[in-house]
Every structure is written in structure tokens, then in C-alpha cells.
């Protein structure tokens, strides 16, 4: 239907004797909200870490926007339009909410020597915060935010650079239902505006509502791929989850 944005090609990672990700291959199409699900320990986060350059793969390749990424590095990928959030909402607690956004917006060498927060930066940050309804928090230190607010802030921050693909690692874990709705809404809005998502998520209702297609990982390799309905009726998936 559309172009392949990210292709993961036979990615493998071993920790000691355990193979966390095993010859894992899948693709993410441009414009999709793809879910990556699987039982605990199936290698989802490890795959995320390799795709985003936080972990060196033992073998396998990653292709993003048609280019092979020979040595994935987080900062490099971020500038190419691939960004991610972390399971535990990693923000910079010592910085203000505004600065958390500004620093993630990316800057040129010249700007590096320029003002910490310029007028343009301020305006962009304000717009983003308005979208996320966090505007009143603009000047607060990020350490003052609640956990849910931190998750929103982290999400908002990675959007500052106008990424093509955002990897969300359990965006709604540990967050209250109101915040889950907000998160879902933001993902949909941004998706409509052209951002592709790859989401690791344990909330199956959310996945079934929001994502298409769904990739199911078990023991480090995909065992099913398809629409939520297809995946749900796949006996292999049931078996993996029930530990049959």
C-alpha cells in the first residue's frame, strides 16, 4: 500500500547463552501505526535498542528510508528522523519543561554557540506544549512533573525535531486512564499529520484500537504479522502468550 520506512533484517542479539533477538526481520510501512507485541522477554525492548543504536547487534542490518544504517548511533538516527521514547519516561529532570523541548529540537553548530533558549525556540516549544496541553508547566523544572506528565513531555520532546518514525516503548505503562486517552489521541493526531509509529505496548485493548498492523514477537523472532483481528485469531500467538 505504501513505502517501507524501516526494514529490520535478520537482527540478532545474544546475551551470554541467551539469544534475546533471533534473526528477527520485519518492516514498518510509512504512515502506519505498527505495534510490536509479545510476551515478557520476547525481545521487544532489545530490538528497540538495536534499531535506535543503543545496543550493538551481533548480526543483521537496519534499513531506514531506503538507506542501510551501517553503524546505528542514537544521535545520528535522531537527526535522520528516527526517534524513540523509553519505557520509564526519561526526561532531564534538572531542566525546565521548556528546555527539555528546546534541547530535543535539534540545532546547528552555529546555534550551539547561540542563546540557550532563543525567541524562536520559545515559540516552537510553546506551540508543542499547547498541543499537549502542558502550557502552564512551561517554566517548571521537569522534576516537578507527575509520572504521566513526564511521559507526555518525553513524547512531545521527541516530536520537536519533526521525526519520520517514532518508536514508543510502552507509552501508557503506569499511566492513569485519562492520560492513556490523551496519549492515544496525540498518537492519532500526529499519525494523521504524517508521522509513522512503531509501538511496544502491553495494553492489548489499546493496541487493537490503535494499531495496524501488529507484529508478534516470541523468543526474539516474529511469529505473526497482520491486522489486529488476524493476529488475535492466530493460534501461534495464543500459544506464545499462554506459554503452551
Amino acid at each position, binding site marked *: 500500500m505504501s513505502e517501507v520506512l524501516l526494514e529490520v533484517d535478520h537482527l540478532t542479539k545474544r546475551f551470554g547463552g541467551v539469544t534475546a533477538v533471533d534473526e528477527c526481520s520485519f518492516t514498518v510501512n510509512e504512515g502506519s501505526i505498527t505495534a510490536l507485541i509479545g510476551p515478557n522477554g520476547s525481545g521487544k*525492548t532489545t530490538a528497540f*535498542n538495536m534499531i535506535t543504536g*543503543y*545496543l550493538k547487534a551481533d548480526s543483521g542490518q537496519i534499513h531506514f528510508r531506503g538507506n542501510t544504517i551501517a553503524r546505528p548511533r542514537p544521535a545520528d538516527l535522531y537527526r535522520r528522523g528516527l526517534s524513540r521514547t523509553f519505557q520509564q519516561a526519561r526526561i532531564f529532570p534538572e531542566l525546565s519543561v521548556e528546555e527539555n523541548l528546546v534541547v530535543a529540537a535539534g540545532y546547528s553548530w552555529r546555534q550551539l554557540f547561540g542563546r540557550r533558549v532563543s525567541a524562536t525556540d520559545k515559540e516552537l516549544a510553546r506551540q508543542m506544549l499547547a498541543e499537549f496541553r502542558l502550557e502552564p508547566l512551561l517554566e517548571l523544572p521537569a522534576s516537578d512533573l507527575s509520572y504521566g506528565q513526564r511521559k507526555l513531555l518525553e513524547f512531545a520532546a521527541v516530536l520537536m525535531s519533526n521525526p519520520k518514525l517514532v518508536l514508543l516503548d510502552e507509552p501508557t505503562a503506569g499511566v492513569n486512564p485519562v492520560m492513556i486517552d490523551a496519549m492515544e489521541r496525540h498518537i492519532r493526531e500526529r499519525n494523521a499529520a504524517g508521522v509513522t509509529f512503531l509501538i511496544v505496548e502491553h495494553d492489548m485493548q489499546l493496541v487493537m484500537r490503535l494499531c495496524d498492523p501488529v507484529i508478534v514477537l516470541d523468543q526474539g523472532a516474529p511469529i505473526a504479522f497482520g491486522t489486529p483481528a488476524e493476529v488475535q485469531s492466530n493460534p501461534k500467538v495464543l500459544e506464545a502468550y499462554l506459554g503452551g
Partner: protein
Amino acid sequence: MHALIQAIILGILTGGVYALMASGQTLIFGIMKVVNLAQGALVVLGAYLTYTLFTTLGIDPFVSILITTPLLFLVGIGLQWALLRPLHGEDVAQLSLLVTFAIALAIEGALSFAYGATLTNVQPTYANYSWTVFGYQISLVRFVAFLLSIVMLGVLYFILQRTKFGRSVRATVQNPMSAQLLGVNANRVSALGFGLGAATAAAAGSVFGMLNSFNPGSHYDLISRLLTIVVLGGLGSIGGSVVAALIMGVASSLVSALASPIWSDFTFFIVLLLVLLLRPRGLFGAKTRGAL
């Protein structure tokens, strides 16, 4: 060729003693994630204790290990309890590092107050005795020191592998959070671990005092060697530090014999540089970067 082999023998024997010092340091890092900059000072403290026991009471340096080791074990526990345990906040690692530096300074200060800055060494009657095996000189003190280090390392290994405390230590080293959840008392493990680290320093110190001239400032020289060894071995890996100590012992002894003793100091720095460039986690270090 003769000189070469002689240097290698010397290097292995010296390396054994370094292995003992470094194993304590890397153990402390493994448990507490603290680089103990006082390890060298504790070795020097052990050497001075041995010196005093020898000169005043006539206790043989090797025998005095039976006194210095338990004593410094207690000192180590006390230091951990009084100075490291109370630290808290975001920067515990940095603060602990600096606190161990302060401990090193305090020990240096106390020793200079008690003994002055002149170089001394412990000279039992057999200090200069040596055997000649196939034409190679093996000094009695060095040889016994090496054996003793092996024995002490064996004891350490036994404690870590076979006792309940050892199990708690290994659990803590692998995963502090889950170790705590499983009921390991982190404070007690840290205190005992620091004590054990200090005890290895004491044992090594008694030997060090016979092999080298020392003064209260000697710990600077020691610590820079020890740090290189533990980084090369991989911070937290006891086996790694033993191997690294032997490598460094032989390497610096070779450089010393073939080039000049001055350059043997640089061997350590060059090795450290190479490790950082090629393999920052050391030979046997687990990859613990980041919080992923």
C-alpha cells in the same frame, strides 16, 4: 634471553601481589560501584603496621598478616559504616569516589604524623635470601609473597563461592535491585565487602613492605598502578583483575629490564590508553553502559 626470562619470573611474582591488592579494589567496585581511591593508602597502612609489629615486637612480617588482616578488615567496615554509608542523593558515585580520596589523604596524613616522610622498609633476616634455579634468581620473599597471595586469593574465592555472604555479594554484583528484593541487606554486604577489600590490602601491604621501600606518599604510585589493573581486568571482575595484574607485572618488569625502570611506570599508562581505545570495558568486564 636469560635476562628476559628472569624479568618474566620477577614480573609474575610481583604481579601476584598486585593481584591481591587489585582483587580487593575490584571487589569493592563490584559491590558498591565505588572506585576506592584509598586502596593504595590501605596497602601502605598495612605495610606500616607490619613495620611497627616487626621493629617493636619482632613479629615476622609474614606472621603479622594474621594480625594486620583482621585489623584492617575491621577498619574497612568502620570506614564504610561511618563515611560511605551515610552518603545519599543523585551523585552518590561521585561523592563516594571523593570520600575515598579523602580517606587516602587522611591515612597519608596520619602516617606522616606518626612516621615522618622518610623511606623505610621491612627487613627480616631472610630479606635478601634467594635461590638459584636453572641459573635464575628467585628471591625467597618474592616467592613466598606470591604463594601467599595465591592462598589469600583462594580464601577470597572460597568466601565468595561457598558462603552465604559470598552468595549475597555475587547477587549484589549482578543486580543490586533484585538482590535487595531477595532480602540481601545491602548495607551489610557493602560493609563486609569494604572490609574484605581492606583486608586484602593489609595482607598485600605486609608483603609490599618487604619488597619495596615506602613512605606515606607511596599510595599515589600504588593507586595509579592498581587503577590501571582494575580497568584492564574489567571493573568488578576479580578473575579479570588477577589476569590483568599478572600481565601488568610481567609487562612492566620486561620494560624495566629491557629499557629502564622509569619507563615501566609508563607501561601502565600506555596499557590503560590502549584498553580505553580498544576495549573500554576491560578484558573481562561486563558491558554495563547506560541504563538500558
